[in-house]
């Protein structure tokens, strides 16, 4: 299976701030490179649709081509916020290929991504977004 990863710098903090700061009791401030945007394509390992914050584990390559387990976060969003966008416990299945965009974690030695907000949802292998909803409220 071929996994692709493209890293590019973008001024992408704005939309992320919208999702991560407005209702985030669990602050993501300072722990992600808000000025960097990373695209990852990989294999879903785990989708934990739990409170206070759901998370997704994706197996994808790092910048050196080494497979890593990436911890993907929706920031301060809780189950209810994602439900309002159409997410459910069945949205991601282990083994499926998806592509996500987000800010990489700052801390060395760990692999994390704060998922892009603003209704830019992960996409499936055929390019369709995993959900269509836009508002978390």
């Amino acid at each position, binding site marked *: 299976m071929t996994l692709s990863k493209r890293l590019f710098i973008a001024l992408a903090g704005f939309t992320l701030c919208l999702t991560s*700061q*407005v*209702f*985030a*009791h*669990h*602050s*993501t401030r*300072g*722990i*992600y490179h808000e000025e960097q945007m990373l695209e990852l394509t990989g294999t879903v390992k785990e989708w*934990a649709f*739990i*409170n*206070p*914050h*759901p*998370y997704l584990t994706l197996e994808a390559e790092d910048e050196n081509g080494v497979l890593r387990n990436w*911890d993907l*976060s929706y920031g301060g969003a*809780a*189950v*209810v*916020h994602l*439900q309002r966008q159409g997410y459910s416990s069945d949205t991601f299945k282990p083994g499926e290929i998806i592509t996500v965009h987000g800010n990489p*974690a*700052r*801390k060395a030695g*760990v692999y*994390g991504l704060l998922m892009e907000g603003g209704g830019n949802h992960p996409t499936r292998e055929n390019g369709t977004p995993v959900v269509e909803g836009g508002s978390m*409220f």
Partner: protein
Amino acid sequence: MDNHHQSIPLGKAKGGMKLLSMRMNTLIRIAGFTCLLPLAGYSQAASDDIPDLDGLWTFGQCPGGRFLGCMTLLEDDPKLTDRALAYQAAFDEMAQPKYDCAPMPIPHMYTDPYNYRLEQLEDRVRIYYGKDDVVRTIWLEGHGHSVPAINEFLYFGHAIGKYEDGALVVTTNKFTFDPQGLNADFRIPSSTQKELTERFSRDGDDLVLDVSTVDTFFLKEPWTFNVRSTPATSMGDAWTCELDGARRSLMFEISKYPEDPEAERIKY
């Protein structure tokens, strides 16, 4: 009112006349009691001072389409004292109780978009929040409720309520010191001197909530907001905090105190 009538026993009697007499006496007593009820403040339905708050309500939203924005105490809010700012700067994110599933404090909890239920009882009001199974009891004045001991402090404080001018006015104090007590997003603490005044009233079908918070150590002036709720049909799904979800992002936190031993959290 009807409940009061039904709860008064008529008693038993053998003779018809005696029974009639007892019933007459009872009816007279009931009539007299009924007349006195509004004066004594026992009749909720008969008093204009007591609004009908009982029921399910959506989370409160700010006037003018500001959604939840009016409730947020900003990290550099001019109301914050120098002490609050210094505390905020010193206290690092990973030491916050929220990573152990500690519930949001009040009034910050109102910024969470979950419905809640008000239950009006004769001597108390209960508030059931749709998050973390938080239930607050508001002890209504005039019912001889006990008060906390002088050395007793509570996570959600001790709340005393009264009906006044068509509103339920709740005063809550005796809070524990809380490192996230004014705002859990920005590490703004609250002291044992935090005191909250909540005023619940009705405006047509809506529930109006006015909140004012004082804390002489961390606020220069009262922090106030006003929100409005509409009737809700359900509390929503059960909300349970799971430690794995709460602590997940800590793996990415960079310690403010790297020379300290790495903090290991208790696995409850």
